[in-house]
């Protein structure tokens, strides 16, 4: 999708195995909704599937519009304008935003300050383009002075953003949107009496309503590992070696709940052999040391899975320890 004024429409297509696949672009990611077909005959179901897809697409785009840091008409932009216009004066936020801010505050507390939704300004000095260009330390220090959740005035529902500071809910938005879509579609299914198994995938963060109606799980592919293929016997030129049909690698069976991944694939700086992760420690303004390449977590909700994977990444070398203590399935790529 280009930066066109009107976003492209959502697409619906039938898939083998009794599924509808809806797809659309939002939050700079490919979004996908898999729905089991319901009702007989199948033709009747297309309109219903299209309606559910529209609900999903509208909800994701609503959240994107509301919390985008690139749009001047977003709710987030309104907070920043209010802060700039009347410094020190609180702005009143709605119920949904208050819930998200509460969650951000909790994560800040739980992470000892590593998770901070005011850290976005560090991006003004850090450009993670795979190059070796580190920002000058004094520029980092100046930017880091404008970071710090404790200096944000938050007394639900009153928010006060000090001058020069900015909030960014990008670290929560996609996962929250996935959970919201599931909540809406479930409610819709109950309302119409056509509750059906669903899988929502927003750019790799995903949540399932439950198992498929035959009880089988949803299969989620993870990046193909390479190497370690079985070798044929060297001396043998006999061509009828046992055939070894290749199976898709790294398949996760997801019966219910969510999976979310945090990672820095392709977003890093490399200097003198040191890889600087795009993950910045808001306490210092410098990249987190020893962060895994990516962390995937399975949790009951996508929001939680996403937060846990981010908190684990921010923990650097301690990512595995943090995850091990939670008792949830997880995958760490180093």
């Amino acid at each position, binding site marked *: 999708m280009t930066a066109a004024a009107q976003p492209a429409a959502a697409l619906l297509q039938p*898939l*083998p*195995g009794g599924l509808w*696949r809806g797809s659309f672009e939002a939050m700079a990611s*490919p979004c996908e909704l898999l729905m089991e077909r319901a009702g007989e005959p199948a033709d009747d179901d297309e309109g219903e599937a299209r309606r559910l897809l529209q609900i999903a697409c509208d909800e994701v785009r609503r959240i994107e519009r509301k919390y985008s840091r690139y749009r001047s008409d977003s709710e987030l932009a309104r907070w920043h304008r209010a802060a700039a216009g009347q410094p020190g004066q609180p702005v009143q936020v709605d119920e949904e935003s208050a*819930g*998200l801010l509460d*969650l951000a505050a*909790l994560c800040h*507390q*739980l992470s*000892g300050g590593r998770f901070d939704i005011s850290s976005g300004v560090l991006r003004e000095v850090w450009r993670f383009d795979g190059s070796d260009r580190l920002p000058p330390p004094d520029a980092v220090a100046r930017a880091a002075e404008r970071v710090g959740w404790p200096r944000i005035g938050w007394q639900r529902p009153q928010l006060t953003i000090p001058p020069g500071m900015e909030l960014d809910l990008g670290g929560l938005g996609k996962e929250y949107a996935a*959970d*919201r879509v599931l*909540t809406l579609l479930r409610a819709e299914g109950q309302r119409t009496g056509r509750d059906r198994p669903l899988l929502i*995938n927003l750019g790799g963060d995903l949540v399932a309503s439950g*198992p498929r109606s035959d009880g089988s799980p*949803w*299969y*989620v*592919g993870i*990046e193909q590992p*390479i*190497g370690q293929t079985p*070798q044929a016997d*060297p*001396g043998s*030129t006999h*061509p*009828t070696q046992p*055939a070894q*049909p*290749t*199976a*898709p690698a790294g398949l996760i*069976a*997801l*019966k*219910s*709940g969510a999976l979310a991944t945090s990672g820095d694939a392709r977003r890093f700086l490399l200097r003198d052999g040191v890889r600087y992760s795009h993950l910045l420690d808001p306490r210092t303004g410098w990249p987190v040391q020893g962060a895994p*390449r990516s962390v995937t977590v*399975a949790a*009951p*909700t996508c929001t*939680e899975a996403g*937060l*846990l994977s981010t908190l684990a990444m921010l*923990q650097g070398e*301690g990512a*595995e*320890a*943090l*995850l*091990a*203590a939670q*008792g*949830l*399935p*997880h995958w760490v790529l*180093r």
Partner: protein
Amino acid sequence: MQLTPDLNAPTPAAFSTSATSSSLPGSNGTGALHLALAAAVTGLLGGAAQAEGLKVPAAAPAATWQADAAVLLYREGDGRVTALEPVISLRRNDGNDRTTGLRLTLDTLTGASPNGAVAQPTAQTFTSPSGKGTYTTAAGRTPLNSEFRDTRIALLASHERPLGTDQRGSFSANVSAEHDFASVGLSGSWTRDFDNKNRTLSLGLSTEFDRINPEGGVPVERGVAFAGTSKSSDSRYVVDLLAGFTQVMSRRWITQVSYNLGRGSGYHSDPYKILSVVDGSTGLVTGDRYVNESRPRSRTRHSLNVQSKWHLTQDVVDLSYRYYRDDWGISAHTLDGRYRWELGSHGGSGDGGPYIEPHLRWYRQSAADFYRTWLTEGGEYVSGAAGRSPAYASADTRLAAFTGQTLGVKLGLPTGQGREWTLRVETYRQKIDQPANAPGALRSLDLTPDLKAFTLMVGYSRPF
């Protein structure tokens, strides 16, 4: 690059150092962070509607089954061997990375196979191995035993499991049977990851016991062909040791070096292969005419394999080189290259997209010390009751010096939910070195015709 499942995560105690050095209050108590976040998120998403979601997700620990089925058709040119091989395999992953598998292979072979005798300017007649009949080869043609017909059934059971966090062990057993051959094998391997799985060491041991019951009995080695047998069966025992080392060189490059040492002892000859005894000047079959082949009763093999894979943005390049040598005098080089070309992605929810994988393989081996296209009467072979013959001799072209080339392509077509169709087409061409100093009539004949073969494989794989 591999996303490593860490499902049987260590107890928090195993990580006590890093856990206490962490300033995360939640990470000290088991699941404290999880519970705090779960409660907060439930509040955010509006309570009741989401309450059922609070159950611990039945994600990866669910057991999964994978079924693979494939049919392979192998066909050699000039009416030689045709093999049809259906394979069915089932694999179960218990969700904790313990996999158990069972594979059933059925092989039917029909057609004709060279019996080892050399072409002649006149027709030749041979007794079939079963002793029940004869077959005749036309003048100028390489003699083929047209009675070549067999069915093989093989069953393989395997089990693989993690041993702690960075070690894995596997064990497998297989049995295979044909009407004149039976084999039982056991193997085990152990792998260990080091340095955050950037290095992996693996060690393996496998053993195999074979029993050979040729039709009509085991021919007397070096004896005159079709003249009787010594015993009804013989056996062979094979042991292989494997050591491998895998190193992640970069995010996109992985390299593996492995060494294999194998030793077989017992009956190694092919009971259906003979050699022609020809006159040194005319090249015509003479004296005892045909003798049974004979190979050493042991074989020690070494091979060294180096393989690298590069994961490009999407595509994967796989190159390998293998050096092989054994104490029969065969040394071989293999170069193998594959390029997995991704044709596009399905989106994030299922598998990768379709792909095309061209495959090129080049193989060159030198001949075994005792490979002979024929034996010369009065030279190293002397016919008659008190005659003499070399200790070992075989005209099996698999022991000759030859070059083999494989050209193939594989097409993979995922259809969602982990299901995938694969189609593989390969052509193989084997060029056997022509023997030097062919006497008389043999000079004008094609003694070692090229072998051309074609392989087609269709496979389907799905989880359930």
